[in-house]
């Protein structure tokens, strides 16, 4: 126990925390400590669960007494609406947690962010590097909170240089089990897009998100990294691969529609999980640092990410039907290719 490194994961009751905890519990050198305000719904072997909030002022004592080496901060409330409770939890929670980490002398902190913080603009370069200014839109709650967190973390890195801070900015996360703006968008019966606009989008599979988080827990690589699957694709191709017919909206109307009053207590932006600008302008991130410095390569190619999502959907909705069969074929081919890629990567390294 003493020679094991202690990893504290916040938000283990949520999808990402639970996935990372079960991934790390298989590692012999790590002791996984989970923190959340609710019990994880499924039991995770080897998880040492503590019921507490990240804003709890006594957290410093917990970190010190457990001799925590790495904190992986995954607790994040992803809401489209701007919401004071979520802000208090996301931003103030992160500030308090990071403060406690610095006081307790935690060696390494890992934070999950999104490439949406760069913002989608007509004058964006085709590939955004990590050192570009964060100009993301603050209209949607989660994006607003992420930008606040990023600004705070940037200051924190300057204040406590002895702590290794890794920020992973993930591209659009797609996966059947995860609940992200992109999966919400793809689950709509007819996702809304802007007429005549077809931006390039970068994707990442949910397993690769957990894989990248585990990678930085196992290897020290401080800094900010964009993480995405190889091969960005146009939005139109993404929707075709997902077998979704989009609703095309003329853009001046689309922007105005967000200002409509609530109908039936449903905010209009609930119906549009991704902000219009992000469906209009490019915001593809540059992955050079992920490949060279982080040394992580996602298992899924972008088109495999979408095909996997589509075949999962068809299997659930239309088991045994024609589509499930047709997609299953390509799906299996992808799996074979992926396994071969992984093998060749292993043999080369």
């Amino acid at each position, binding site marked *: 126990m003493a020679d094991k490194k202690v990893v504290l994961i916040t938000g283990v009751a949520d999808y990402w925390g639970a996935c990372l905890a079960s991934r790390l519990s298989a590692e012999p050198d790590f002791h996984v400590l989970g923190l959340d305000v609710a019990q994880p719904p499924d039991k995770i072997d080897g998880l040492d669960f503590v019921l507490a909030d990240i804003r709890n002022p006594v957290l410093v004592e917990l970190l010190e007494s457990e001799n925590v080496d790495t904190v992986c901060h995954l607790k994040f409330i992803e809401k489209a609406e701007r919401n004071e409770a979520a802000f208090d939890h996301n931003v103030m929670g992160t500030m308090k947690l990071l403060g406690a980490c610095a006081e307790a002398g935690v060696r390494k902190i890992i934070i999950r962010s999104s490439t949406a913080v760069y913002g989608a603009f*007509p*004058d*964006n*370069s*085709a*590939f955004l*590097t990590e050192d570009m200014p964060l100009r993301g839109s603050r209209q949607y709650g989660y994006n607003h909170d992420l930008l606040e967190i990023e600004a705070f973390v940037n200051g924190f890195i300057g204040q406590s240089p002895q702590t290794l801070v890794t920020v992973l900015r993930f591209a659009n996360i797609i996966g059947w089990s995860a609940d992200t703006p992109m999966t919400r968008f793809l689950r709509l019966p007819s996702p809304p897009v*802007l*007429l*005549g*606009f*077809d*931006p*390039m989008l970068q994707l990442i599979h949910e397993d690769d998100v957990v894989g990248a988080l585990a990678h930085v827990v196992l290897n020290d690589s401080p800094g900010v990294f964009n993480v995405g699957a190889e*091969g*960005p*694709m*146009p939005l139109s*191709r*993404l*929707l*075709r*691969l*997902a077998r979704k017919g989009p609703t095309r909206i*003329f*853009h001046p109307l689309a922007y105005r529609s967000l200002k409509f009053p609530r109908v039936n207590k449903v905010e209009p932006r609930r119906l549009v999980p991704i902000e219009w600008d992000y469906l209009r*302008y*490019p915001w*593809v991130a540059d992955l050079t640092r992920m490949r060279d410095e982080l040394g992580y390569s996602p298992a899924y190619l972008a*088109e495999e990410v*979408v095909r996997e999502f589509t075949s999962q959907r068809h299997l659930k909705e239309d088991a045994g039907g024609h589509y499930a069969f047709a997609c299953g074929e390509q799906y299996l081919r992808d799996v074979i290719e992926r396994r071969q890629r992984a093998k060749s990567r292993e043999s080369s390294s």
Partner: protein
Amino acid sequence: MTDTELATRCRAMTKAGKQCKNTTVDGTDFCHIHIPASIRPDNGKAINDETTKEKLSDRELRERLIVELDDLIARIQAIDPEYSPPAFSPKNMVNLMGDQTSSLSPLFRLRILERLRSSINEDLLDIETWKGMWYMVNYTLEYQSDILKRRLKGEYETDEWGLDWEFVEAVRPFLDFMYKFYWRVEVTGIEHIPDYGRTLLVCNHSGQLPWDGAMIMAAVLNEHPAQRLVRNLYANWFPTLPFISAILVKMGQALASVDNGTRLLEQDELVGVFPEGYKGVSKLFRDRYKLARFGRGGFVRMALNTQAPMVPVSVVGAEETYISVAKSPTLARLTGFPYFPISLRFPWFGPLGIVPFPTKWYIDFGKPIPMGDYEPDASENLVLVSRLTDQVRNVVQQMINDRLNQRRSVFY
């Protein structure tokens, strides 16, 4: 000639009916061309060769073909020293065939025509011809619908910039029409663009709408032997426009920024820049041949970063496609356009005002300016950047003036 020497000659006859002069393959009586497959000694190896050949990339195959062609040219030149090889691009081939038939005697040409005509007549009466045509039409339709079906399922490829070659092929007929028949573009100096490797085209910009970019693209696709795609860099107003933004990305164009240009050049692409920007396109009719300021030298920094040679390009003829007499800043602000031209036909005739005049165009590619001699960090040397910017600008202006002196009329 001794017996041993005779034995090394191939026993087969060539297609022309002469004795083959090649030496034999060891252990057989035939040369490597005429040897029957059954007695080929390296049968297994030959098959291996073929499988490796399939793995060769297009580029390697093309390189091989070029080597073979060079070899052939050298052999012809040994016989006829005055022979100069034709340029191998589609348009030049057609021109070459036209030139060759006109050099034949009239009687001979008539015979060829008659032969062709009669054979066509006979064939039209034959049911097999119609069957063949029906088959061809069916095949084409099926092929096209397969592409469409595949695309509807999302099974198509784009590069990381969004370039979609199938889309480029679909748009090409329109570009070619404008290029060949509408503006009857004449091109010189296409040989200054290399077949491979990073190159930066620096072009003048004029004519209210960026048709010149499209025509430079069409010129290189039609005239250049390697049929390279020009990756033009566009201004940041275009991404805000519906349809146009999507079309530009699918055609492999990118937003004008030093990052994008450098990255494209590092990928050994052929990049086109219009350093004049809006100031160039929105020129009034009276200033039409005067180059505007060449930006802030971003294009020189791209070239210095990547040591890519710069090819100056002048487009003459685009200046007269629209006659802009004034610019309205008020209307530009109201509509959100970067500039709002008041021309003879726009905005008075609405969409009709957008139809360009069918002027005669000349696109001249100048001598490349090499960048390999500068230090790697030369792009931070502001003096050097501004000097190079002015140098390229003067070259392009000179090329425009030369062309104007030679031109007889705007329309032919």
